[in-house]
């Protein structure tokens, strides 16, 4: 009985001492940065953090920056100089300077994955201007909403389908995968909307190699079945609202020649027309526009050897593993892409439109 009691006391003691629970800091003693900017000057990283802070019942943004040899060291220096501890768990957006992106972000991203300080679910973006200037403009003009930068990319808030959504882990995957690259959105500050979306950067093995326009990013999102909902698409004679998209792929690998058949089904609603055109014409026109746009983009991607559509995934079971590493340089170049875009006009709004088979009426 005495022995049991001793054991119990020991266990309770162990529970308390082994955890280090006296080290935990309450949420109000932590700084929770929402966005983090990284640029490189010479050999040193410059890190800028956007921290929302409550001031008199309102959230205000605070910008803090520091430079150092490594990112973690820089954060540590910042933390030492601040009144609270910096907790990077809530960093939702990581902005990378365009120059750094061109040099390659492999080390930075690997660092994030290794240390687990930053959630691997954080979004990666590229900033096409001086990062400090970007942060200052963004947070000064809109200090009412302290997390605007994060909400810009949030799927249930400010996100629109022509913005690519790429997480830290996806960038990390693209660094190490033979067959999968990523598109990363590019933003600059300015304009009446504070943040301007400039399109996407194509990242191959962690390096920025090419840029694509927002419209092309939309196609990528539609291709990947990221919802392209609510997006207005304009052709010469009409504008339509995309309400649903679906992609079907079929891959073939015959005689070392990869080919892919793709069908993108778009369900659209007619919004506006110029003159009286038949539904068939609008369909055909829209389909042609999108197809041309896709072909142009695909050629560009093939030239830059970046597989952001993840097409190589369809051939992983057809190409032997040791040859798979040549996917980007060899097979991807030879890939025959047969894309057809099928458009279904679900309704024409509150008005009737001319249709060839309805014209008899």
């Amino acid at each position, binding site marked *: 009985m005495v022995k049991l009691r001793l054991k119990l006391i020991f266990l309770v003691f162990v529970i308390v001492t082994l955890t280090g*629970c006296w080290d935990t*800091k309450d*949420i109000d003693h932590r700084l929770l940065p929402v966005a983090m900017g990284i640029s490189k000057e010479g050999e040193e990283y410059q890190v800028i953090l956007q921290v*929302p802070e*409550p001031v008199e019942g309102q*959230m205000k943004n605070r910008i803090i920056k520091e430079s150092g040899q490594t990112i973690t060291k820089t954060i540590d220096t910042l933390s030492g100089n601040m009144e609270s501890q910096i907790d990077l768990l809530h960093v939702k957006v990581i902005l990378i300077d365009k120059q750094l992106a061109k040099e390659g972000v492999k080390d930075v991203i690997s660092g994030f994955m290794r240390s687990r300080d930053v959630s691997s679910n954080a979004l990666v973006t590229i900033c096409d201007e001086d990062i400090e200037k970007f942060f200052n403009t963004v947070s000064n003009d809109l200090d009412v909403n302290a*997390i605007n930068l994060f909400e810009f990319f949030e799927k249930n808030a400010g996100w629109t389908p022509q913005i690519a959504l790429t997480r830290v882990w996806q960038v990390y995957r693209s660094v190490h995968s033979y067959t999968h690259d990523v598109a990363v959105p590019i933003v600059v500050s300015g304009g009446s909307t504070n943040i301007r979306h400039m399109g996407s950067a194509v990242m191959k093995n962690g390096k920025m190699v090419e840029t694509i326009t927002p419209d092309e990013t939309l196609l990528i999102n539609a291709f990947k079945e990221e919802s392209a909902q609510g997006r207005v698409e304009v052709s010469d004679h009409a504008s339509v609202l995309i309400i649903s998209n679906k992609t079907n792929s079929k891959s073939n690998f015959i005689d070392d020649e990869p080919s892919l058949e793709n069908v993108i089904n778009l369900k659209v609603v007619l919004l506006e027309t110029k003159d009286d055109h038949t539904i068939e014409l609008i369909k055909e026109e829209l389909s042609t526009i999108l197809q041309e746009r896709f072909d142009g983009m695909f050629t560009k991607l093939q030239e830059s050897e970046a597989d952001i559509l993840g097409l190589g995934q369809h051939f992983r079971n057809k190409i032997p593993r040791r040859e798979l590493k040549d996917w980007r340089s060899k097979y991807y170049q030879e890939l025959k892409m047969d894309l057809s875009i099928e458009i279904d006009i679900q309704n024409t709004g509150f008005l009737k439109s001319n249709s060839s088979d309805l014209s008899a009426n």
Partner: protein
Amino acid sequence: MGEVSKKVKKRFKNYDDFFQQETYLYKEIVEIMGFNTLINIPKTKDILQEYTKSVHTPDMTLDDFLKTIGEVKEGNIDDAIQSIFEGKLIICSNKGQYVVVDPIPKELNRSIEPPSNENVLQGSQSSFIEDLETNIGLIRKEKTSEKLCVNSYSMGKRQNKKLALLYIEGNVNKDILSEMQNQIEKNIKKELQNQQDLSNILGFSPWLTMSKFHTSELPSEAVKMLLQGRVVLFIDRLPIAFILPSLIWDMFTIENEHNYPYPLMILIRVLRVLGLLTTLIVPGLYVALVAVNPGVLRIEMALSIAQSRQGVPYPALVEVLIMLLILELILEASVRLPKSIGPTITMVGGIILGQAIVDAKLVSNLLIIILAATTIANFTIVGVQNSLSIRLYKYLIVIFASIYGVFGLLAGMLLIIAYLSSLKTFGVSYLNVNLERDVIKR
């Protein structure tokens, strides 16, 4: 005055409520004695006189009459004394013979009233009272069955506390029943006053944090349990049915719900399960999210919590414990307080204290919301003792959460479930959900 009455009088000289009166039966003097606090004397006398008339035959004597109303005893007065303490009346003749009879008792019981601890919506409103016989009667009234059996025991050294054991023959598991009967008979000399004594007699550990008895003051509830094959125990002078074995599902069900449509019944029960989980988890979750794992929160939530905690001097655990303690005090006080002052203290405690404590920045206002939700959810659980146990368990989870965060929540829940599953009443697990399949037809 006869030998017997002298002895009895001597024995009761320190009992001022003892009475001894002479009266005439068949033109002979007899003495009647007993406690005037337990016996309604005038009515008893009337009945006695009326009875003599009704059995009157021309050559009837007192001796014959005494034989008709009870066993005539002589000499030894121990029986007489014991009977007097039990509230019986002694009729003693001049020859030293006496008879023990049941008098008209004084009305010392309250009438059958609506339950005071368990509210019933749209259902049978009668509840048990202190009198054992009335309670058994209530059950017989509710369930007229030839199979309803009652075993009575007199517990204690002086054998003066009555215990009744009810079961429905054929529904109950015979092994469990006989084990229970043996246990009671083995400990029949032990004193019995309350639930703790009963649990001692049945051989349960006194250190259980979850009662092994399901208690109820509703006859309908007790009858439902009897029909399920459980055993109901009554202690004299306690208006509660002790139902054995108690199961976890009893926390969520009331017999009366069967008066509602089926879907509504299910919804109400789901609500109670949610109430249980809320009580257990929410305070711990607050501690875990605020102190250990803020990364789990959405950023908007994290910021607003951080904002509401600005200037709060304590760590989250201390903050939660302080507020929980104050709430427990309010709860305990409102039980003690007379009904007329109850609402006042609720207002002072709930609104004024809550508002002031937030204004004074002692705790965050989010915590007030959380504690209010916890306390309210606590009372969705059926049974006073069950909800007390759950109230206790939530502290375990709070402490684990403060050490291990969200993982601690899980560990605490696991520990509680492990504890509950370790409970067994006469071989029936507390977590049993199908008593009929697992136990009765075993």
